[in-house]
Each structure stands twice: as structure tokens, then as C-alpha cells.
């Protein structure tokens, strides 16, 4: 087992995209922050700025 897994991390050059996609928690961060900013926060700000009817 142990030897096999050592074979597994034979050094190799990984591209930027590959490293991004292997970083699961960075993806989680992006997948939550992007819609929170562009959809929720932006949307809520627009509604909050509406004048209230008298």
C-alpha cells in the first residue's frame, strides 16, 4: 500500500486550472461568494434603496 501511494505523488507540473480544480475548498469559497455578491447583496441593496411609499 505505502509504496503504491508513493508512486501516486510522482512530481509533475500541474497547470493553474488543475491546481484550482484540486483545491476543493477554494472552489467551495468561490461557489458561495460569487452568487452572494452578485445576486444576493447587489439585489438586496437595490431593494433596500427603494423609497418607502407614504
Amino acid at each position, binding site marked *: *500500500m505505502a509504496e*503504491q*501511494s508513493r*508512486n*501516486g*505523488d510522482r512530481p509533475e507540473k500541474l497547470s493553474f*486550472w*488543475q491546481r*484550482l*480544480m*484540486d483545491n*476543493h*475548498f477554494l*472552489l*467551495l469559497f*468561490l*461557489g*458561495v461568494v*460569487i*452568487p*452572494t455578491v*452578485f*445576486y*444576493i447583496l*447587489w*439585489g*438586496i441593496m*437595490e*431593494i433596500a434603496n*427603494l423609497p418607502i411609499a407614504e
Partner: protein
Amino acid sequence: MGQFRQCPDSGFFFDKSADRLMKANAVAGIVALLIAGVLALGVILTRWQSIHLLPADTFYTVLTAHGINGLIFWIIFFEIAVLYFASSTLLRCRLAAPKWAWAGFGLMLSGAIMNNIAVLSGKSSVMMTSYVPMQAQPHFYLGLILFAVGALIACFVFFGTLVIAKDEKTYEGSVPLVTFGALTAAIIAVFTIASGAIVLIPTFLWSIGYIAHIDAAMYRVIWWAFGHSSQQINVAAHVSIWYLIIGVLFGARPMSEKVSRFAFLLYILFLQLAAAHHILTDPGLSSEWKIFNTSYAMYLAVLASLIHGLTVPGSMEVAQRSKGLTKGLFEWLRKAPWGNPVFSGFFISLVVFGFIGGITGVVMGTEQINLIIHNTIYVPAHFHATVVVGTSLTFMALTYLLIPVLFRRQTFLPRVAQWQPYVFSAGMVTLILFQLGAGTLGVSRRHWDMGFSGATLSFDYAGTAYMMMAVSGVGGVLAVLGGGMFIVVAVGSLIFGKKLEPSAGFLQSFALAPLAPEVYDIEQPEILKRAEKLPVEEHGSSGFHAPGTFVLAMILLVCFVVYYFINWDYLSSVWPMS
């Protein structure tokens, strides 16, 4: 005694606790589907105007329960099973924190029961969207909140399993594509559930009188961050299952792993923004917000779906051609195992999702032409193409695959299983096409009486609209029958199917007891090897080796362009500009 068993037929490894948890979640999902399906009959027979089965208040109760059981409980329970499969089984890793996973399941189950009690009592007929200021009973919201918390725990069990697999080096290189797709689903799920909490917790407090007022416009914006994204969990999940199924049935490898992964990445980054397409007719939000979130962002996500829609059949075509099915454009497809419900279910779901779901989705997501069909029966028609024929039929196909592998039973009534995807989809496609037509004529969704009898302000629909609703009713009844066939086969197999493993008894089928301990005879499976590089990937790029798929894609494009411009033309006649 070890931790894993290996399925002798498929070679998949099952961790002892993941094994039972997958069964429990899948079974709970199927029960919810049964409820949704029985209620569907009430819905469809009421919308078929000459039958007009239920009285108004019952109709809205039934419609609320139909939507929630179908869209939320069936699909999410099943998805949790898929997440555990994609992490533990595919990565050959023990499941992280099984006690937490059971706690999550318990919360989901009690939440689902609590919510159903609230709805079926008739005092919470607020539709699945539960827009304020309509108020449901407190346990309606509380049930949904418990369900969401349970699902969130399950997502973190999934993430935890990924971490363990990496630490314990159960796989080489990157996670397999199917797991990456499931990761996409789990990421979207975290955002979905967080949004659900932001909107439902205050609403719950309002229902018990703690908060005086909830702003209706705010509610809608945040609710759809939850409601739309939850559909995108489904897309990511069923696309992953498509890749799994072509791998299992044909030994197909994605034409380019890189491209498919990139398409999932586009989902993670952009798919959720398209939630704004539900708000296109709301006042109070700027066109900039609407158009940025639908057009620009949504088209990147649509691009990703087109990539999957091309590479899934393309990869299957390449695999089939390499086995010698090279005659003409379509021998690879003609000679596919059409009698195997795993295949037929998957392929029908791919075609209907792509052609009908995809094309109508883009039309509805375009700010201007959305106006033609907003809030008409066109909308349920669209999402029955995506979430019923797309997601649900894919999950049914996966169930057929899992009956022997996970439940260790032979399929009960295989002939019924063989016909099921055809009956179900024939009924559903009829329902969909005719409701798309009726919606274009303006027939409302969620409307008990299209005849407006006794209404002060009434409206006369054209006779064709009534006719179309009737034909969709016939399709709906057929679809309910097809759904029933699935339930009979699935539940029948768990109870009466021939045992492929002596200890796979009744209790084991329903996750109430574990399989015999000696079945788990493997301490840790061998490391999951990195797949050999495909020749295509080594050369960088190469020609498209799937001419049949290319032709199908061109047909899709032509259908889309024609239909899109017909809608613009129609818009110009609805709103004369001269």
C-alpha cells in the same frame, strides 16, 4: 471482519456505514416520490378542465404537497445517497463521521414528516415557494429548516470524506470526473441551504409572531437564491450520473476530462446567478441586475450544459465506435441497449433535458421574451422537462443500476422495468409539449379554474387552450402510470427481488439492519489508480471523433434558433411597437 465489501458484479467498493446510509436516503427519497406521484394525479385531473376533479382549497393543498415532495424531498434525499456514493464508493474511502450522517438523515426525515403534516392538514397551502405575506403554520417552516440542516450536515460529511480520501491517499491524482461533478453539486448545495436558512428562519419567527413584517420583494430575491440553486444541484448531480452510467455501460471515458471538468467549474462559478430569471418581472430591481445575472452569467452556465450535452453522447459514441459499431452516422446509437432501463432512462433524460428543457430554459431566461410566458403553465412544463424527465428519470435509471449493486437484489418484474422509461417519458413529454402550447396562449400556472366561473374579471381562453390542457391531462395520467411502474419495480425488488447476497433480507433492503458482518471482508481497497491518458489528451486536441453526436448537436442548434426567433416575433405581435 473488515470495513468494505466489493460488489462481485460491478467491482464497486462499499464502506459499511456508507452502504446503509445510501440505502436509507434512497428509500426515503422513493417514498417521497410516491407521495408526489399520487398527488400529481389530483393536480393533473383538476387542471384538465372537463374533469376538474378537486375543489379549490384541496387543489392548492395537493399542489403544495406535490411540489414539495417532488422537488425537495425526493430529489434531495436521493442526492444525498449520490453524494455518499460519489465520495465513499468511487474514492474507495470510508465515510467521514457516519454518526453525523445518521443525525443528518434523522433531521431530514423528521423535517419532511413535519412539513407534510403541516401541508396535508390543509392549513399551509402556500405552494412550495411560500411567498410572504401568505402565512403557513410554524411547523411548515420548521420542517423545511430541519430538513435543510440535515442536508447541510450530509454535505459536510461528503466534504469530510474527500478530505479523508486525500489524507489517506485512497486515490491517485485528481478525483474522478463523477466525483468532481458531485463536488459541484455539493458546493451549490451549501449556497442553496445557506440562502434557505437566511429566508426561512426569519419567516418561521414571523409565523410565530416574533417578527412583525417580512418584506415581500426581499423574500422573493433570497427565496430564489435557494429555489433556483436547488435546481442546479440537480443538474450537476444528474450530469455526473450520466458520466457514471456511460462509464459503467460502455466503458466510455469522457472525450476530454479537462473540458468536462472545466464545464463543471463554470457551473460552480455562474450557474447560481441565473436565479434572477425568476425575478425578471419584479419591480424594484434594475435591468442591470437582471441582465447581468441572467444573460451574461446564465449563458456561461448554458455553455457548460452544452459541453456536457455534447461530451456525454460523444463519449458514448467514441466507445461504441471503438467496439466496431461504425456503420453510418448512428449505428452506435441504434445498437445501444435500448431494452436496458438504465440506458433508455439515461438517454431519454439526456435528450429531453437538452432539447425541451434547455431550449425553453433559455427562452424563459431572456428578459424580453420571458414576458410572453411568465407565470403561465409554460413554466411547470419547462421544469417537468428538466427536473422530472431530466433529473428524476436519471435517478430512476441509477436506481435500476443500484438494485443489484447496492441492494444486492435482482430486479423484480424486469419486463415492467424495461417499459417504464418509455411509458413515463411518453406521458411526460405529451404533458410538457401541450402545456408549453397552453402557456404560450396565456393559461396561468397554479390556477384552479381556467374558466373563471363566477369571477368579476373573467377571461375567455381560446378553445385550443382547453384542448391542450386536456391532452396534457392524458399525458399526465400516463406519466403517473409510468411513475407507478417505477415504484412497483423499485420497492418490489427490495422486497421480493431474488437475493444476490444471502444476508440481504427485508430489513437490510430498508437499511434497518446491516448485512452479515462477514460480507465486509476488505480492510482497505487498493488505491484507485489514475486513468491512463487518452490518446486525444496527449496530442492536445484532435478532430471530433463523434460525427453522429455532431449532427445531433446541429439539430439542437437549429431547433433553438428557430424557436428563439419565433418567440421574438410573437412578442412583437403581443406588444405592437408601431
